[in-house]
């Protein structure tokens, strides 16, 4: 099962108690399909990451198995066992 690690700010904004979630409805497919499933489990997850036109926000990066995603989410295929990390730009000191 795929685990998605969510950024702190997203957890605050969407009132989530857990740092990571397992997306049970997703078996395999693209990263976009995973995030569509995630958004059903956690309404607001997709708009947090992407603009209204679907492009990823410029202060958000997604990592699949420790590698940065640079391609369109639809072109990134997942096999169902990857670790996904959504990391938001931070500047706190």
């Amino acid at each position, binding site marked *: 099962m795929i685990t998605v*690690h969510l*950024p*702190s*700010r997203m957890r*605050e904004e969407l009132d989530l108690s857990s*740092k*990571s979630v397992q997306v049970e409805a997703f078996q395999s497919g693209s990263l976009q399909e995973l995030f569509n499933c995630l958004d059903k489990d956690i309404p607001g997850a997709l708009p947090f990451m992407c603009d209204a036109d679907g492009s990823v*926000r*410029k*202060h958000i*990066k997604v*990592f699949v198995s*420790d*590698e*940065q995603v*640079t391609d369109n989410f639809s072109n990134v295929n997942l096999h169902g066992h990857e670790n996904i*990390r959504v*990391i*938001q*730009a*931070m*500047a*706190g*000191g």
Partner: protein
Amino acid sequence: MNAKYARHLSVLGEEGQKKLSNATVYISRVGGVGGTAANYLARSGVGRLLLAHGGTLDAEYLNRWHLAHESDVGRPCVDVFKEEIARINSSVEVEVLGEHAKSIDDIKAFANEADVIIDAAPMFEERYNNNLLSQMLNIPMISGSMYAQEGYVMSFVPGETPCLSCLYPEKPEFWVDRHVFPALGTGPGIIGCLLANEAISYIAKGELQLKGKMLHYDLTDMDFNKLKIEKDHQCKVCSA
């Protein structure tokens, strides 16, 4: 070797220690992250610290600023830093710019002799200026930041690795001032230690462990990961 650095010998060697004593490090903001880095760099015997930081000391800084004490509230921050670093290690030369890194011209004039940049400002505008400075003067930049229980450290080498703007070309909209981020003292402390360690490694041995990498952590479940970051070939700062 000076007794203060006796325990460094097998880690850095005499040559490494000498390089440290001849090195200059520019630190942008000397708070929870940058102040922790400054503390450890001073203790390590770095030759010169260039500190850019404006304003006076607020009580809310005390949960995370290693260089500040209750009696310092209300004092100019740079006075406190100079005094405290002199107490830690009087061999370290400290120069201060009593302003944040808001003007690229000012920091260029102030930090042009730096061997390495430590980017620890709580405002993205200052971080983007430090990134620009790194690219303009061809100085490696070690960048560390946090939000709540989460944080990351990355090392950027001009011409070799992605830069800060490759990764995050725009700041989040909510980040309008320094009050937006929650923090325990521990998170900034961890980041500051990692920044100092990376700077010492670079100066003494020419090695950056986080070159082209992001060390990301979340203390909520003590999750630490080293992630590979990529250059943006359309980046307006390093690919122009």
